[in-house]
């Protein structure tokens, strides 16, 4: 298993390099020059100086290599547009907010979704089952921008006097409630349905019948035999869900006016701020790749059958 872990980790390096390359290529394909699109036209000579400073006058492959070196030394370069800040600064300022939002949404989804799925499976076809699956289906199909909008409409506007939750910005805990719910509803329903399906399937397995035939208490059968095996798919699902959380956070940040990196990403793209775009994209990619790596490793740990297979 250790060998598998090491191999898996090593594989992420070429993957990251490839990702940087692709982002780099795509970024370069965007027509336009950061220095010419700013409102105040920059004089030619200064432009050339800036280009030299940011290596933009070098051939493409050299720029790529400079950049890769930068990534691995954790120096993502300066912002091309907001010239007083480096990309690292921007990221440091705004990224933690996005992470905070994402992690809380994920926790919300897990804490609410998984128990809901478990209960629904154990009481299959009961009113509880139908009700929770009904809610799950609603939450899963309604686009998050509508959920967010409705949440704001009801909690912050119509019932303002009762709950008085703020709808803008990011500060104390009361500002977290609505955005986290809005972002977390979809993953919650995803988990609920996934866990329910997985548990129903596990409950049909022969080894559950054996456990019952051994005379173990039902509580023990469920807790020890069923749950462990049912939750494995939920673990593997967190990988792709991370992608959703990132995507979704763009929207949620936009709606709730949260100063995360989502907002800066779009402005940077339209403003041709190469380094910010690259920096954020690479950062997000690394997070996704690392998250998938962790999920893969945890999965092997959880399911002993995979340990002895040759990868």
């Amino acid at each position, binding site marked *: 298993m250790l060998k598998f872990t090491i191999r898996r980790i090593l594989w992420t390096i*070429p993957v990251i390099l490839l990702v940087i390359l692709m982002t780099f290529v795509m970024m370069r394909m965007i027509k336009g020059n950061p220095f010419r699109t700013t409102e105040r036209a920059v004089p030619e000579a200064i432009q050339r100086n800036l280009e030299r400073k940011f290596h933009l006058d070098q051939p493409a492959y050299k720029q790529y290599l400079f950049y890769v070196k930068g990534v691995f030394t954790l120096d993502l370069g300066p912002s091309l547009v907001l010239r007083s800040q480096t990309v690292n600064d921007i990221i440091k300022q705004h990224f933690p907010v996005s992470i905070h939002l994402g992690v809380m949404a994920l926790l919300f989804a897990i804490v609410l979704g998984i128990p809901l799925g478990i209960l629904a499976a154990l009481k299959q076809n009961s009113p509880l089952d139908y009700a929770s699956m009904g809610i799950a289906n609603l939450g899963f199909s309604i*686009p998050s*921008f509508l959920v967010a909008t409705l949440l704001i409409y009801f909690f912050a506007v119509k019932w303002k006097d009762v709950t008085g939750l703020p709808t803008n910005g990011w500060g104390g805990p009361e500002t977290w409630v609505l955005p986290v719910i809005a972002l977390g509803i979809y993953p919650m329903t995803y988990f609920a349905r996934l866990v329910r399906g997985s548990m129903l399937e596990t409950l049909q397995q022969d080894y559950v019948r054996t456990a019952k035939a051994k005379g173990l208490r039902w509580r023990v059968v469920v807790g020890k035999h069923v749950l462990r095996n049912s939750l494995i798919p939920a673990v593997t699902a967190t990988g792709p869900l991370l992608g959703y959380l*990132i995507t979704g956070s763009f929207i949620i940040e936009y709606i709730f006016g949260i100063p995360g990196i989502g907002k800066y990403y779009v402005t940077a793209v339209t403003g041709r701020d190469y380094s910010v775009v690259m920096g*954020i994209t690479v950062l997000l990619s690394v997070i*996704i790749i690392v998250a*998938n790596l962790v999920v893969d490793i945890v999965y092997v740990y959880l399911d002993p059958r995979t340990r002895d297979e040759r990868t």
Partner: protein
Amino acid sequence: METDQRDHAIEATHRRRAQFEDALTRTAEVRGTEAGAALGRASLWKDAYYRFIANKASVIAAFAFLILLAYVIFVPIFSNEDPYAVDFSEAYIPPSWEHPFGTDQFGRDLFVRTALGGRVSFAIGFAATIAIMVIGITYGATSGFLGGRVDNALMRFLDALYGLPYLPFAILTLAIFGTVNFWTMVVALTIASWFTAARVVRGQIISLKENDYVRAAYALGVPRRRILSRHLLVNTLGVIIVFVFLELPGVILGEAFLSFIGLGISPPKASWGTLAQEGYVEYQVHPYIIVIPSLMIAWLILSAFFIADGLRDALDPRMKET
């Protein structure tokens, strides 16, 4: 049982066997049945169709889907309202008998506009889904079928693509094109989502490859390309069809997200996402403008999902068998 007693019993059995063989043959002639006779031809698709029909949720979902399609296609044809007419005196009328979905800030009837928006959303959705399937199937089938190092290399590349988050990827693609119109949107969505299809197809092909009937085909000397088309792809069709119904709403939702943050198709051609974005601006005063197109999307997602569920059960009966 003791050994000699057992042997004795088996001897007796052999004796009786000869007698019984005759008796059985006579019976078979008389009754005209033969053990294991075929039950009559059944086709995979007919079976699947019946199984699908039997699933209430799927049938309801299929109807819902068709109703949505009908709304989107027919309402603009039969409506008298001009969706582009600007008439400020009619602005912001909430849903009423005359305007079932109300009107927007320019006085345009939203019942028709939403239907037109649906056309755009569906068009983008279908185009992107088809493109995704074509690319995904080609890539996935090639990778899965060829196996070995080719498969490894192709999959590593895919892993890298998975590392690029969906929205940024789509945004970058749109930025490369410069403008956002129907085709650039389709391309952007396709590029950001084809890898899941490739992986699913590859997975299916790989698991099918191990089946004995494929090995038998090889042993009989069937050319490789024929094995791929005749045996593997046909059995992958089921998975593909299910996947289409899962991917379509995903793509439309993706387009809606992009439109919502301002990267949608430029007016006057509006998709549901664009309509939602327009409605978002005034949701506090006129909430219905954003609610309606969003609910359309929700309707689509729900119906497509249950259809996919029903299709999956219909086409892969093994899962339900006890």
